[in-house]
Structure formats: structure tokens, C-alpha cells
């Protein structure tokens, strides 16, 4: 069977549904509605129209030769998901799930968010479709992504700062699941990544695979051939699955996922789930997981809120075990250097998440040499990260700060 045909609930030994019984009926309903919608021309036409006239798809590709000079001269091509409405790939998934919410007939949506990009996208779709919206965000993340909190509130969403556990994305998911268990009768959970219980890993992947489908055609028409390698950052893994999927059965195309190594994978402060974790169950799916010897989830660390997650989608775990995709660590420092380099050489400020993929591409280019073509998923833009970047690079003069 082609790798692209895998639809879950299991991806090899991974995936499934490790959830309270209270959620099974809602997951069954979502599965049924999605199975029907994904081949229903009326649904697909409506989604296509939103992609075209709301999000701004297809997103372009941009070749970045001045950046590529630092990558051993390999050709580097960016897939510009940063140019989507709301500033990242997250909108692709959210519009699809918001349409499904309407089909199911529920009036309220909830979502978790780390960097705030999925929360902003969900709040946006809720505004567009007239749905009530509550976003769960770890208290730590509401502090480092304050601008996105303001955006969500401006869009009419309620933002709940989660104070339990590590007060980051994993705890936001816990609280969103508790809300869903309680309010499932009228509430749909718009899950942001390719993790969670079935049908989320397959459904979110299906809603994001448009990234790779577009990019495959675009790179072919620009260069006359397929790329040698694809680079994407991996937290939960939705932008990576989105760009990998169209290439899964192109054996000559290498797929590389770059995980957040934080202070370094030799330290305890990282989020390299596939690199350093082992299989376990979290948030409804079996996959790789950062955990201690007792199976307690270990807190992850990354400068990038969107990658600061101790789990990863089950399809990535499967692809890693198969050897079809490779997963490498990128430190905070390397990611921030890549962020500055792309800004200075190309005039594009990437999200810190996506900067992990850029740092990976720099390393990859030096390995592959000047004949290589590397496609990088620029999954989001860096506007939200200016406070972090300003602090990191010491960009704001003391005297220039507003009091």
C-alpha cells in the first residue's frame, strides 16, 4: 500500500483512541461526518472557495538565493504559508473543521494553542462563521505571546490562561479536553495538530496536505524536477505532515523534520520528542512522548511556544520508525540565527517555529552540496515573535522603550 493511503486510526503501532468513554460518541460523529465531507463536492467546493478568496491560496513559493549562499550553495525554495491570512498554515485546518462544525450543527468551538497561531486561526474562523469560541492557552504562553492573546480577544474569543501543570501547550490541551468532555453536546473541539485521538491525526493531515500538493507542482514547474529534500519544523507536526504528504511515495525525496532542541538535547531543556522520547500514550494517541521512567509526562522546553510540546503526531512516529522521514534537533540558538539570517538576506521575517526548519535547511544544504534543491515549509511569519527576538538580539534601546 502506498504510504499516502494510510488513513488511521492506526499508523503502524501508533495512533488509536486513548480517551475517556465520554468522548467516543463525539469522535465517532466527527469521523463519520469527515469521511462523508472529504469526498463531498459541495463541501470541497466551499473549502476551495475559502482557500482562494479568504486565505489567499495557493500560497506562493519563493526561491531565496542570498540565504542559500549560507547553505553550501544548494537551491532553497520556501513554501510561503506565512503569507496566509492569519499568518501561518493553521488556517488551512481550521477552516475545514469550522465547516464541519456547521455540518454537525454545534454552536461553540474550543481549541488549544501554544504560540497562539492556532488560537488566532480558530478565533478567526469562529468570527467568520458566527460561532462561540473559547481558546485554552498555557499561562506561560499567554505571557510570551501576548500579542496573539490580544488578537484572539479582538476577534471575539474568550482566552483562558491555563494555570495547571507546566502551564504550556500540553496543559492547555488537558483543559480543552475537560471542557469538551463537559460540553460535548453543543461544542466541537477544533484540534490544531496531527496528534490527538482518531480522527484528528488523519483529518488534520488531510486538511493540511494542500501545502505539499501545491508545492510539488510549483517546484516541478520552477525547476523541472522534484526537490531532493523537504525541511519542516515539528512540534505536534501539522505543517510537516502537510508538506510531506504529497511526497511520501516519492522515494528519492528526503523528508526531514526538525524538532526543537531548546538548550540542546544533551540537556533536560528541549522538546525533541522523536529524538529523545519513547512510545507512550498522551492526549488520546499512542506516539513518541517525553516521559520519565514512571510514564509521567516530562515538561518540554523551547524558545518557540509552537514547538514546546512533549508529544508528536502518530504519523510522524510511524514515518520515523519506517525510516521514511528523519528527525533532527535544532537548538534555540541555531533557530534564532536562521531567523536573523533570512530577515537580513531576503527581507522575510519568519516565525521562530519555522526558523527551526530554516536552520535545518542550512545544515542540509552543506551536506547535499550545490546541485541540491531543498524545499522548506515557511509555516508562519515572525510578527508575533518580535518581543522574543528583540530580547534575544538586544534590539530595543533602553531609552527607546515606552514607559
Amino acid at each position: 500500500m502506498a504510504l499516502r493511503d494510510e488513513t488511521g486510526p492506526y499508523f503502524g503501532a501508533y495512533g488509536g483512541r486513548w480517551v475517556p468513554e465520554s468522548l467516543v460518541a463525539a469522535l465517532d460523529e466527527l469521523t463519520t461526518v469527515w469521511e462523508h465531507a472529504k469526498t463531498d463536492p459541495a463541501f470541497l467546493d466551499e473549502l476551495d472557495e475559502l482557500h482562494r478568496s479568504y486565505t489567499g491560496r495557493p500560497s506562493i513559493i519563493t526561491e531565496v538565493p542570498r540565504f542559500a549562499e549560507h547553505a553550501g550553495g544548494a537551491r532553497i525554495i520556501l513554501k510561503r504559508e506565512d503569507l496566509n491570512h492569519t499568518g501561518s498554515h493553521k488556517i488551512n485546518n481550521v477552516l475545514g473543521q469550522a465547516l464541519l462544525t456547521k455540518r454537525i450543527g454545534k454552536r461553540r468551538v474550543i481549541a488549544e494553542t501554544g504560540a497562539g497561531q492556532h488560537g488566532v486561526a480558530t478565533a478567526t474562523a469562529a468570527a467568520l462563521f458566527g460561532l462561540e469560541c473559547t481558546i485554552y492557552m498555557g499561562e506561560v504562553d499567554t505571557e510570551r505571546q501576548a500579542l496573539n492573546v490580544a488578537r484572539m480577544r479582538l476577534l471575539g474569543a474568550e482566552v483562558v490562561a491555563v494555570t495547571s501543570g507546566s502551564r504550556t501547550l500540553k496543559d492547555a490541551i488537558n483543559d480543552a479536553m475537560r471542557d469538551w468532555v463537559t460540553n460535548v453536546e453543543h461544542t466541537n473541539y477544533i484540534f490544531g495538530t496531527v496528534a490527538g485521538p482518531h480522527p484528528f491525526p488523519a483529518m488534520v493531515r488531510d486538511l493540511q496536505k494542500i501545502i505539499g500538493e501545491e508545492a510539488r507542482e510549483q517546484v516541478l514547474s520552477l525547476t523541472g524536477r522534484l526537490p531532493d529534500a523537504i525541511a519542516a519544523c515539528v512540534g505536534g507536526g501539522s505543517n510537516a505532515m502537510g508538506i510531506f504528504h504529497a511526497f511520501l511515495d516519492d522515494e528519492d525525496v528526503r523528508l526531514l523534520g526538525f524538532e526543537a532542541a531548546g538548550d540542546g538535547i544533551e540537556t533536560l531543556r528541549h522538546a525533541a520528542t522523536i529524538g529523545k522520547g519513547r512510545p507512550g500514550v498522551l492526549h488520546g494517541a499512542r506516539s513518541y512522548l517525553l516521559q520519565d521512567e514512571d510514564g509521567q509526562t516530562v515538561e518540554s522546553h523551547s524558545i518557540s511556544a509552537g514547538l514546546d510540546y512533549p508529544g508528536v503526531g502518530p504519523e510522524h512516529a510511524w514515518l520515523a520508525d519506517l525510516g521514511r522521514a528523519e528527525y533532527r534537533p535544532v537548538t534555540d540558538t541555531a533557530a534564532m540565527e536562521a531567523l536573523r539570517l533570512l530577515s537580513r538576506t531576503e527581507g522575510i521575517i519568519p516565525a521562530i517555529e519555522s526558523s527551526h526548519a530554516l536552520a535545518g535547511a542550512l545544515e542540509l544544504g552543506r551536506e547535499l552540496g550545490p546541485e541540491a534543491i531543498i524545499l522548506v515549509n515557511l509555516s508562519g511569519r515572525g510578527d508575533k515573535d518580535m518581543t522574543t527576538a528583540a530580547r534575544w538580539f538586544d534590539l530595543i534601546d533602553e531609552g527607546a522603550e515606552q514607559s
Partner: protein
Amino acid sequence: MSEPSAIVPEGARGAVARLIDERRAQGSGILVGYLPIGFPDLATSIDAAVALAENGVDVIELGPPYSDPVMDGPVIQAATQQALANGFKLRHTFEAVRGITERCDAPVLVMSYWNPVQQYGVERYAAALEDAGAAGMITPDLIPDEAGDWFEASDRHGLERVFLAAPSSSEARLATVAERSRGFVYAVSTMGITGARADVDAAARGLVGRLRDAGAERACVGIGVSTAEQVREILGYADGAIVGSALVKALADGGVDALGRLAAELAAGKA
């Protein structure tokens, strides 16, 4: 997925099933009390469980703290987070079960989220539970669809296995849960997480009725139960009432003595 489990022969009822059957013959039911292990510390949590048994609680539900307890509300989250911060280790689970069963006759059911069990090894965990004298395990985030390993291990070690049923569960799922559970089915009274509620939902009565129609021999109701009156009402249609957050709050606020008093008060609901 899962293979059919061995048919449990007549007479192989576990301790909790036997207790329920005895009470039913007397026209009553059981009171199940939940406490987290290691809260406020390991020794006190064992004393607290014994105090439950001495004050009329029939079955102890013992929860090993877990980092991501998605079925638990704020009271139990706070207690288990504190227990983890104080150094709870998985092996304390078996020490606690042994410590309790050595001091009282109440059967002990461990209530564990699944990842710690899987990491320890399902077979090894079941063997350790049997060795420590546990009656079985309640699994809040393990559904029968994913429980193949647990069917085998629990049968092999003579452990009762309690799955949850929800008001939203389809008839087909209720039938599966009823068939796969040993001891009793945990009927979730309301759509939600643990924590005291003023009214235990009418949904609980309906769910227990549907569970019986689906073939469940024994059903106990939990989530939101906090008063003797609620216990009395539940035992009017179910085989047991399960109290958690209210007990944890009493222990947190007033120590083992206050816990014992609340247990005795709740147990009055069985009369």
C-alpha cells in the same frame, strides 16, 4: 484490536462483585470512596484509606497521581499535583495497596490513567497489583477498543476491570463495556469531569437502566456525588455510589479525622 477474552467461569467473581451481590441480596448497595495515593504524603494517604473503611466505605478506589489527568476536576488535580511534587513514584501504588489491605478488609481498586501502566508493562503491573492484594483496576482513559493487553493480564491475575460508560455512549458501546467489565461498570453520572455537583444528573438513572438492558450485571454511579442524600438516591437504582472530590477536599481541609466524619455521614446514605 482486541481478541475475545476467556470466559470467566461461574464462581470466579472478584471481591467487589461478591460484595455487591451480598449487598443486593440485602436490598442495598456499596459505597466506593476515592483517594489519591501520596496526598498529603504516602503514610497519611494509607491512614486515610483505612479511615474510609472504618467509617462505612465498602470499596477503596486508589488513584496513583498522573501528570495529565484529563478526567479530573480542580480538587483532585490540586491533590495529585501536590503528591507528584512531593515525590510520588509508581511503586508507591503497590506499597499503598499492600498497606491498606493489611489493615482492613475493604477491597481496593486502583484507578489509573493508562500511560503509567503501559510504561511499567501491563502484565507486570497486573502481577504487582495481584501480589499487593488489589481487587482490580478502574481505567478512565482506556476504552475496551484499546484494551487487548489488559483483558489478558487481568484475566490471568484474577483482577476485576472496571470500564466507564457515559450518557453519550451508544447501545452497542454499552453492550461492549458491559461484556468487558468485571466487578461493575462505572456509570459516569453526567457529561463532565470529577467534582461535587448539587444535582446528580437524571442522566445517571437513565444510563444505569440502559446499562442493565445492555447486559451489565452491576453498575455503580460516580462523578459529582458528594452527599448522603445523593448516595441514598443512587442506591435506589444502582449497585453503588462513588465519591471522590468531596472526600479529597475533606482530607485536604481537615485531615484524616474530618475525612472519617464525612465518610460516616455518606455511609448513612446506605441505610
